[in-house]
């Protein structure tokens, strides 16, 4: 990568008070991964609120039914132990909803109690016996205290692999792909199409594009409406290789590799020309075929998109707030276009972040995004989830929405960021947002950067405020 900006060092926000969190809880991410498995059902071991908050936020983002249950711990169970509730919840769900995969996620409450869930689940499994039916019980180790959505997502995948993966006969021309939490349903569709364009087949785990892609089902189901099937889970080892997308999928991929003896390849990002090229090179090698004409055309279109977009983007300042792997994707496309990234905010200190070409990289919140960018002299564009709209407004910059949650947009699961086509669309999105914003500014003298904090101004709930969706 060309030396566009100086390498960063990862700063931790030293505030005791988090203001406008960027982070959501790891169990929420775990739930999302479990919902991307066909007939999946996540269960939070905690108080009812732990489930209710995650459920409401998932509903607001996806606008789909979200099956998500709770062990409903009260104060008595909190003191004396929640094993009875856990058993009773598992029994109720297994017999009533009959999920294919039931993923049990601890919460901060049970972690603080240090409940031995692994032992509990073994005992419960034995006691339930036939009541459990075909339900696969998965223990997700995604503690609430470490990381955010992508860490919980990866932990759920690790939990699934731990239960189902075993050596199987190799299957030529088939890939087991572990998909990162930063990919949208559209990204997964595109990835699958790309793999199939090489006459390869694949199993995606998790497969958000099968469950939360916003289709209208024919019948009501109390469990997830699609995703990686149970048969596919049983056959994870039946492939010629494991491909993981996103650094946070490295641990589950390595576990799967160890269990199945399959070779493992981790691609950090599919956003940006270089990342896409690496995928195509990998697929060419796996299939022994060169890239088909459609993909060559897509690459050519991307080159043209980069050329057309760079006029607006080059030298512009982009502030980004996203979880580590999505951040990597967004920093890549922004800097590939010639933008500078004065400030990037993320949720946790993940491996590899320190090499990102950004001026400041802060593990922090959306207030850090706003204040650090102001300190750095402002920006031309903000990239982040929909609650970043406040920071964007304070910075007088447009917001390109990526990541979770997006509560003021419909259809965000169909936004495409990955592959030649997704990179092309993101390049256009960045260039168009900057162009539009500059065009507006040409109509009147530019805004002076106001040092005043936005809370002092009289702001009303309005249609483009971050909560204006449900």
């Amino acid at each position: 990568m060309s030396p566009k900006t100086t390498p960063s060092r990862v700063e931790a926000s030293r505030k005791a008070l988090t203001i406008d969190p960027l982070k959501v809880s790891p169990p929420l991410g775990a739930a999302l991964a479990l919902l991307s498995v066909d007939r999946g059902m996540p269960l939070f071991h905690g108080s009812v609120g732990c489930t209710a908050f995650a459920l409401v936020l998932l509903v607001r983002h996806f606008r789909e039914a979200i099956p998500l249950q709770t062990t409903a711990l009260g104060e008595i169970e909190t003191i004396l132990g929640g094993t009875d509730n856990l058993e009773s919840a598992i029994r109720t769900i297994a017999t009533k909803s009959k999920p294919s995969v039931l993923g049990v996620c601890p919460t901060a409450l049970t972690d603080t109690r240090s409940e031995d869930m692994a032992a509990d689940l073994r005992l419960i499994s034995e006691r339930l016996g036939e009541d459990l039916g075909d339900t696969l019980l998965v223990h997700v180790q995604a503690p609430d205290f470490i990381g955010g959505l992508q860490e919980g997502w990866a932990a759920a995948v690790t939990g699934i692999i731990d239960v189902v993966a075993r050596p199987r006969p190799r299957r030529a021309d088939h890939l087991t792909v572990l998909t990162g939490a930063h990919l949208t349903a559209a990204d997964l569709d595109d990835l699958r199409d790309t793999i199939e364009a090489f006459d390869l087949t694949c199993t995606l785990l998790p497969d958000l594009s099968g469950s939360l892609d916003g289709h209208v089902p024919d019948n009501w189901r109390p469990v997830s409406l699609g995703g990686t099937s149970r048969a596919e889970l049983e056959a994870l080892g039946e492939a010629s290789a494991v491909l993981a997308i996103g650094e946070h999928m490295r641990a589950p991929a390595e576990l799967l590799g160890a269990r199945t003896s399959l070779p493992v390849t981790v691609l950090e990002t599919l956003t940006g020309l270089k990342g896409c090229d690496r995928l195509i090179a990998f697929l060419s090698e796996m299939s022994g075929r060169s890239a088909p004409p459609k993909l060559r055309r897509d690459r050519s279109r991307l080159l043209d998109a980069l050329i057309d977009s760079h006029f607006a983007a080059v030298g512009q300042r982009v502030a980004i707030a996203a979880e580590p792997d999505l951040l990597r994707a967004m920093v890549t496309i922004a800097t590939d276009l010639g933008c500078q990234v004065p400030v990037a905010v993320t949720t946790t200190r993940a491996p590899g972040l320190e090499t990102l070409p950004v001026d400041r990289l802060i593990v922090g919140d959306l207030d850090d995004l706003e204040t650090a960018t102001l300190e750095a002299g402002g920006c031309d564009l903000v990239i982040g989830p929909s609650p970043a709209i406040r920071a964007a407004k304070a910075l007088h910059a447009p917001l390109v929405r990526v990541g979770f949650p997006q509560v003021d947009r419909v259809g965000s699961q169909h936004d495409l960021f990955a592959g030649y086509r997704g990179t092309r669309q993101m390049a256009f999105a960045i260039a168009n947002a900057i162009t539009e914003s500059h065009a507006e500014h040409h109509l009147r003298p530019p805004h002076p950067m106001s040092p005043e904090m936005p809370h002092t101004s009289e702001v009303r709930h309005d249609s483009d405020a971050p909560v204006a969706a449900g």
Partner: protein
Amino acid sequence: MLTDRLAPVFEEPACATNRAKTDAQKRAGCKAKGPTPGAAAGGCAFDGAKISLQPIVDAAHIVHGPIACEGNNWDNRHSASSGSDLYRRGLTTDLTELDVIHGGEKKLWKAIRQAVEKFDPPAVFVYQTCVPSLTGDDIHAVCAAAAERHGRPVIPVEAPGFVGTKNAGNRLAGQTLLDHVIGTGEPETTTPTDICLIAEFNIVGDLWQVKPLFDALGIRLLSPITGDARYHEVTYAHRAKASMVVCSQAMVNVGRGLQERWGIPYFEGSFNGVRATSEALRTFARLLVEQGADADLIDRAEALIAEKEAEVQRQMEPYRATLEGKKVLLYTGGNKAWSIVQTLQDMGMEVIGTSVRKSTDHGKARAKDLLHEDKKLFGAIPAGEMFRMLKDGEADIMLSGGRSQFVALNARRPWLDTNQERHHAYAGYEGFINLAKRMSLTLNAPIWEQVHSPAPWEEGYTA
């Protein structure tokens, strides 16, 4: 200690559910049956406490807990503000493992200081959650010390999630207001027509549809609890001459507290629909006159009611044809199911069933009177059954909260949000027309014909 505080809020003598109980039932308490593990829905006590107090728009609301309590939850209500938007900021101590090991009190202390320095709010609310409650963080002590240091109220809200349901949290929030806020301030002036609205949260501006009615009658909304409230307005609620509890399940204890401590009469009412709104205005007029307001208030209220009701009849005209005879399935988590049933019937619609999950016995009786049949009153309906009712066309439209919307939408039937995530205000006379308009628009939307039309590969397809 918490249990000691929790018991009284459920021995609420003004609670209709409680009044209807036998002595033995009363002794068993309201918490006898907790939520069923694996088959539970709804928020926790912290959720309930926060939604009750957060509409105080100029206060800082700090959640002392791990990220799940605020990171998954901030700014997710549509309580509207006419001024400050500090209440919409997501403020939390974001506790980590180290805070659990070493205790989170110091972090909370620093967090309060940072909030005061950055936002200079008139007051800070600190919400206790499960984890620090379990590890024993004494938020009362921290808040007391911080209040002294910063020279402003720092109020502990002791309602960790595991102590009960959202409703328990609403009540604990009410108790917090009685213990720490109400009675601590004085208004510059008082009038004989000062009122207090309790448990009205100004969801998408509900309050602003009602307030002009009070203004027209010269009635002053002294203390909103807590919709679009400024902190100081809540401190002098004890100077109101009458109060109305709008969501009686949520904060009836505040109405009773005002009555017991300061002799302020209160009533339970609703702004859902024309009849309920008129009833509320009449009751306020009567109570205020009893408290010494000019007697002509009653006549002026009647005149306003007559004028507004006539206006509603005129404004309803464009929507009547669409709504007449349409069948509604009502599945609201709100407690005033009866008043919505009444509203829909007033629009000429047929309510084929309503949930009364959160209704009081009185509310259930009113709903039964309106529907004439017991079988139209439901507890929880399994989602599969609701889906069937809609798919088979037993209902033309469903009104419910956000979580159950997909039952209707996946059955490809119209749905309207009548809970807190909605985007339109349905209070008072104006809200009645709004609701009629939104239902008409949804029922007449061209998409329904399209989503039911056969695909090219299905039988019955025509080009």
